[in-house]
């Protein structure tokens, strides 16, 4: 079973990102379970969402304390909270950032991959300049870097779940997929 | 007129408290201590007594005269008070 945690801020599409990933995985015939950190968080506040993926039905219904991998939708969270709490050593941290993977030496126990999902989102006019919605792009990168889900399934899921600008979101996912690169194994 | 409904066991009765008959089984005439008596001489057949009877206990006969249904009349006396011709008197029940 794979356990993935999403970090973002309220309003960025964090919970939606976890749902899109779940839908994409389900389209590939696997079992998924996805849920937000239950609470009453408001816009702007840090938000966490979780996804479990398995080839067997998933029965465990407790929270995820030790995720295998992370997606960080908002790089400013890295300074604000310990995003790696409980993260299993060697797990992927996929960060939406303009920086390079090497700029995150604090994550030396993990595998860091970066994607500038904000620029891709803005290029495709998804969300506003002040609040770009980056979930489609970061999932494209996730598909490429981890290979846990195919880009076709991600494209389909993005198309299905985007309430507006469906095509732009699909393009953003594809572009992120195309540009994303896993760093060389150390 | 409704018949009194009698059951012996639960299977005789409906699934819930659902009425099966009308309240005309309940002869409210026994509540009465004053009985309206209509003086046909004075009656002008206006129907006001019928109109104001809360107990649906005045009928109009074939000659258009009101008739008190003593099985149900509770003896409130509204008819006597409202009669424009003073044609209804209330007399003590024996």
């Amino acid at each position, binding site marked *: 079973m794979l356990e993935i945690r999403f970090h973002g801020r309220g309003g960025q599409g964090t919970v939606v990102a976890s749902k899109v990933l779940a839908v994409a995985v389900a389209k590939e015939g696997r079992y998924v379970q996805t849920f937000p950190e239950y609470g009453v968080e408001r816009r702007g506040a840090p938000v966490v969402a979780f996804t479990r993926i398995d080839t067997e039905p998933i029965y465990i219904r407790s929270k995820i304390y030790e995720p295998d991998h992370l997606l960080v939708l908002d790089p400013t969270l890295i300074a604000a909270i310990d995003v790696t709490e409980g993260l299993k050593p060697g797990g992927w941290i996929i960060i939406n950032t303009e920086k390079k993977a090497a700029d995150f030496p604090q994550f030396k126990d993990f595998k860091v991959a970066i994607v500038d999902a904000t620029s891709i989102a803005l290029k495709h006019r998804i969300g506003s300049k002040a609040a770009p919605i980056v979930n489609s792009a970061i999932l494209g990168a996730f598909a490429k870097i981890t290979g846990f889900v195919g880009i076709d399934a991600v494209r389909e899921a993005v198309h299905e779940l985007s309430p507006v600008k469906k095509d732009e979101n699909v393009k953003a996912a594809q572009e992120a997929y195309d540009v994303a690169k896993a760093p060389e194994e150390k | 007129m*409704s018949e009194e*409904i009698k059951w012996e066991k639960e299977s005789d*009765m*409906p699934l819930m*408290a*659902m*009425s*099966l*008959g*009308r*309240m*005309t*089984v*309940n*002869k*409210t005439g026994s*509540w009465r201590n004053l009985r309206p008596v209509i003086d046909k001489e004075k009656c002008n*057949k*206006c*129907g006001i007594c019928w*109109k*104001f009877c*809360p*107990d*649906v*206990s005045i009928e*109009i006969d074939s000659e*258009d005269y009101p008739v008190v*249904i003593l*099985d*149900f009349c*509770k*003896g*409130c*006396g*509204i008819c*006597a*008070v*409202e009669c424009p011709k003073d044609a209804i008197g*209330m007399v003590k029940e024996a």
Partner: protein
Amino acid sequence: MRYTIPEQEIMCAGHKACQGCGATLAMRYALKALGPKTMLTLPACCWSVIDGPFPYSSVGVPLFHTAFETAAAVASGIRAGLDMRGDTETNVVAWAGDGGTFDIGIQALSGTVERNDNVIYVCYDNEAYMNTGVQRSSATPWGAVTSTTPPRHFKQERKKDMMAIMAAHGIPYTASASVAYAEDLIRKVNKAKQIPGSKFLHIIAPCPPGWRSSPEITIQLARLVVQTHMFPLYEIYEGRYYKLSMDPKKKPLTEYLKPQGRFRHLTEEQVAEIDRQVDERYARLKEQAERSKPWFEAKKEKKD
């Protein structure tokens, strides 16, 4: 004989109302106008007893007994259920006392009329919780004695203006009626039947045990309450346009108050206080009716 109201009796004899019950006449008249294609819902009130015990009933139409505060909501549900099954014709009527309307049921009532659900809500108002033995309600008039407002501490608050509250919801039709004016009452029920949306009827219904009056003067009291301007008969269209159903020359208030034990303790000054309240309200009503005249005239012209 000349019948001034429909002949057909839908409500039957044998019901459990007290002698001289005004609420019973209200039902008898309303059903004459509503006809057999009517469904009633009845919260806790005198009528929950009057209709008769299981397995009997006196109303002659389907009746759903329900919890005290739910008459309006149940009526909304019945309407929706019937509509979904293709019956948009049957009249759905919530029939509640003043407790179930002015007090405990006002929330659900406000909900139903705010949604403008297509139901008729009838409040038969006997001005206290009569079913439980005459405790005050917010419909009890100023000065009245009830079992919870004893003579030395009679009701110190004015009767809630339920008509105004209903009008404030902007519903298409609101009307007051009295059991002494059967023809007027029946006309109003007929009108309510024809108008889609929420209709509210407020019927004054004397209660001999509660008002401490003789049963034979029920109609007299129901007439005097109108003639003294204590309970004016009027209609409100669309929540804004007022029309007095009659504008009788005001009779002295004491003619209405005197025969009722619930007002017997009142001093002259206190009667004068009620008089002042009555005049104030009646003047306001007349003003509202005057202001509404052009609307009614325009409506009439349109019809012609």
